[in-house]
């Protein structure tokens, strides 16, 4: 092996899918490479073929796909060069590479894990396949890997099933799974989308460490140009399956040349945007939003000021302890712990927080998908207050039409056996809106506003890219023209330009129609762009809630501060200070100043009003002035 030769060389790779109406070319003669120990970032628009390329490297393309070209893998261990496309589908050659020499983090962690097996089982299995180890050794190694991946209680996580984990936790499990064999090449397809910035930083640091320690190379697929700027060595920009621009990270960030890349750079939301400034999407889709949603039903913006008020809701999940037959002494995990907030009509409330802190659980409780153990939720509509938790029959049905949700995991929230057409038309059918024909029209219009071509209407969810699916989820939520839209990571899988397009759309709808949002996201810049007020959650509680400006400029709570400190910027001159980020520390109360810590009795925390709607969780007796920075 020539030292420093390409670890992975993809030459003229073309991939097409045989579909009913003819073939779809997802990748057209793309070439790229990854150097040993280096990181090649693959960026590009949603649906441009990034994931497909990464699949072809592992030879795990769907059956209907055909690939041509060469994918050369130089195994530094053996020095042999193999053309992966020439290997037999599931033969021993490719198997000895998969998992051991090349690890892959899948884009959609939920569906990528088997629901029937524990996390520990699935992660340690890689070791069983490739390494000769005793059971105990495997356990040790897995626990260690899980801890490195950011699980604070890896022993517990080992025994948990995927559906018991939050989105971010699943993603971390996926990361652990990919890394456990210390592969020479890691293919990371959107590895941090579901992670909050502190944990993201922690993961990035982990990857960097591995890179240095084991000379691990990485093919990183991401939309977050901030991440690219922080970790990549080389960048490949891809659009519609074709490479548009490629080069060292310096060149790409400092001298973007191709109009597409320039457009991308411009579409990134940043913290210093002026109020009212719009994101510049690569393409603006003119949307007659009011027409779109008026078709769904007329709306009134009158009514009380507060649309939804949440009071002291809590939710615990039972955690299994002990064996199968022993009566489990049930321990509970407080996923949500006395959360209260209001959402005002027409505003966008941002909700940020650590991965696994209970954001999704809160949002599901608002939808009555999860029943809280205690607390109350009132929806204040023009027809008077409705107790969300008690509504029945017709009231509930009306409520359902008024509150909609975009799910965090787009794949599993779309019925796998329904075409997009049917998925989007379904809410309209349920609420008996319009005629079959007008529904058809409506569905077409929805597809357009989310930037998907109408010709995809007859495809099934699985044949879309991650971002495309996420957009379908958004379109479905919009179909009924709800008053309150709960968005759980609605843009995490979107590249910046499409993201800009979608965010603009949401903004427009808010402006034109007075739509109200609860916007959950890990991307603080996005929240900053969207939200009027922002709530920060940590460990099941809201630790700080303030108008956007206040929170961004003058955060009070230490957790908020550490969040803001961990944001990666798409700027080579503002690299993250990895060494400053201590592992699993941001949410660890012990690192906070005393005012924010629980007292020795185990509680004594209360919401303290700092004025101007700035609330923070601190010791009951804490001095307001002391808290202010």
């Amino acid at each position, binding site marked *: 092996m020539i030292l420093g030769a390409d670890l992975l060389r993809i030459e003229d790779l073309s991939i097409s899918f045989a579909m009913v109406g003819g073939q779809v070319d997802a990748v057209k003669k793309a070439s790229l490479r990854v150097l040993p120990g280096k990181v090649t970032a693959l960026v590009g628009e949603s649906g441009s073929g990034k994931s497909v390329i990464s699949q072809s490297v592992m030879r*795990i393309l769907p059956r209907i796909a055909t690939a041509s070209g060469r994918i050369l893998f130089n195994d530094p261990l053996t020095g042999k060069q193999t053309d992966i496309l020439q290997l037999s589908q*599931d033969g021993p050659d490719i*198997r000895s590479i998969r*998992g*051991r020499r090349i690890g892959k983090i899948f884009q959609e962690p939920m569906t*990528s894990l088997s629901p029937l097996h524990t996390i520990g089982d699935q992660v340690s299995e890689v070791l069983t396949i490739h390494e000769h180890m005793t059971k105990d050794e495997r356990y040790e190694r897995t626990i260690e890997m899980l801890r490195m991946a950011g699980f604070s209680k890896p022993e517990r996580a080992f025994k948990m099933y995927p559906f018991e984990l939050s989105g971010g936790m699943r993603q971390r499990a996926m990361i652990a799974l990919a890394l456990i064999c210390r592969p020479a090449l890691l293919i990371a397809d959107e590895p941090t989308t579901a992670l909050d910035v502190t944990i993201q930083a922690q993961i990035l640091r982990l990857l960097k460490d591995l890179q240095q320690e084991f000379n691990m190379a990485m093919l990183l697929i991401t939309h977050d140009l901030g991440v690219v700027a922080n970790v990549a060595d080389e960048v490949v920009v891809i659009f519609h399956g074709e490479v548009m621009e490629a080069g060292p990270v310096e060149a790409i960030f400092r001298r973007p040349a191709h109009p597409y890349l320039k457009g991308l750079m411009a579409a990134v939301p940043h913290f210093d945007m002026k109020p009212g400034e719009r994101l510049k999407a690569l393409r603006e889709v003119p949307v007659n939003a009011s027409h779109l949603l008026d078709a769904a039903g007329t709306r009134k913006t009158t009514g009380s000021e507060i649309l939804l008020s949440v009071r002291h809701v809590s939710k615990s999940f039972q955690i299994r302890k002990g064996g199968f037959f022993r*009566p489990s002494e049930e321990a509970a995990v407080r996923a949500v712990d006395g959360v209260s907030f209001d959402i005002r009509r027409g505003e966008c409330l941002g909700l940020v927080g650590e991965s696994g802190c209970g954001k999704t659980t809160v949002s599901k409780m608002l939808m009555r998908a999860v029943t809280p153990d205690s607390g109350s939720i009132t929806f204040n509509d023009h027809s008077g207050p409705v107790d969300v938790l008690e509504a029945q029959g017709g009231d509930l049905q009306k409520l359902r039409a008024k509150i909609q949700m975009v799910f965090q995991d787009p794949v599993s929230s779309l019925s796998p056996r329904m075409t997009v057409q049917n998925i989007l038309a379904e809410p309209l059918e349920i609420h008996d809106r319009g005629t079959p024909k007008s529904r058809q029209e409506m569905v077409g219009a929805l597809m357009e506003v989310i930037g998907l071509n109408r010709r995809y209407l007859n495809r099934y969810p699985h044949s879309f890219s991650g971002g495309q699916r996420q957009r379908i989820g958004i379109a479905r939520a919009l179909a009924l023209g709800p008053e309150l839209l709960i968005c759980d990571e609605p843009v995490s899988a979107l590249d910046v330009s499409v993201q800009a397009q979608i965010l603009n759309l949401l903004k427009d709808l808010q402006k034109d129609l007075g739509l109200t949002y609860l916007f959950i996201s890990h991307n603080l810049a996005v929240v900053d762009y969207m939200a009027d007020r922002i709530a920060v959650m940590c460990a099941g509680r809201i630790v700080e809630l303030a108008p956007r400006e206040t929170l961004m400029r003058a955060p009070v709570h230490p957790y908020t501060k550490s969040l803001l400190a961990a944001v990666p910027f798409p700027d080579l001159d503002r690299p993250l200070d990895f060494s400053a980020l201590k592992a699993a520390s941001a949410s660890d109360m012990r690192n906070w100043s005393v005012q924010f810590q629980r007292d020795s009795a185990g509680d004594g925390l209360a919401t303290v009003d700092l004025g101007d709607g700035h609330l923070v969780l601190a010791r009951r007796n804490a001095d307001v002035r002391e808290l202010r920075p």
Partner: protein
Amino acid sequence: MLRYILWRIAVMVPTLFLISVLVFTIIELPPGDYFESYVSELRAMGEAADMEEIDALRERYGFDQPAPVRYFHWVGGMLHGDFGYSFEYQLPVSDVVGDRLWLTVLVSFVTILFTWLIAFPIGIYSATHQYSWGDYGLTFLGLLGLAIPNFMLALILMYFANIWFGTSIGHLMDQRFLNEPMSWEKAKSILEHLWIPVIIIGTAGTAGMVRRLRANLLDELQKQYVVTARAKGMNPFRALVKYPLRMSLNFFISDIGSILPQIISGAEITAIVLSLETTGPMLIKALQSQDMYLAGSFLMFLAFLTVIGVLISDIALAILDPRIRLQGGSTK
């Protein structure tokens, strides 16, 4: 989990009660009673029955009493381990059943084993090699087994086994071993005869299992987690067994409870045709001649096994699928 199991066992009591009522109704439904049919049968042969004896028996078994009284008599007896009296054999039911029970268990067990041993590999093969010649061929064979009625297959196999291998016709063993204690020779003879009923009873079920397994596997094989497993570098076969197969087992496990009655139902006619020394022919005969305690106790015994089977199936389902175990109790 333990609580769940205890709760499920508690629920079995009313179920068994319901079943016993149903069983009793079934055996009481046809008009007349055993003695009626006994007298008729004798008369048809030109024989006479001793009416004295029959009247005495009638009285003794409370045939002059209303049905509920008889029901409680019967159930009460069973609770004490007294399964009643067979009029046909003029012996206590437990004596009559004797050997047949374990032979039934043997045949059923071997049949189930046979079905699984055949169906699983074929199902997996068919799913992974969809539309290959093997898939078609095995499908065809399986369906052939399904398409030929059991009794016909029984006749055909019996006839040719006799012509080609000289296996004596019908029965589970050569007749000279009938009343003998177990010996090596006898066991051999049983094995020699066993394959015919097992094939006959097994084939019908096998095709169904193969097809269902194949269908379920085909669905699961598309799932993303299979791709994940492949990406781990897992051997495709082991991956298949660990992930999609386990998922596909859902239907199979939910069926465990009914396997026994199904096998026994399927076996009944075969057993009649082949004149097997199992409980099937005895049960049918008891039903037809209205030997009610024999039939009733038999059915209750079967029902009991089934209820246990369902229990096992429920527990296994919970073990198999954590989603059912951890969230299954809730109501939507």
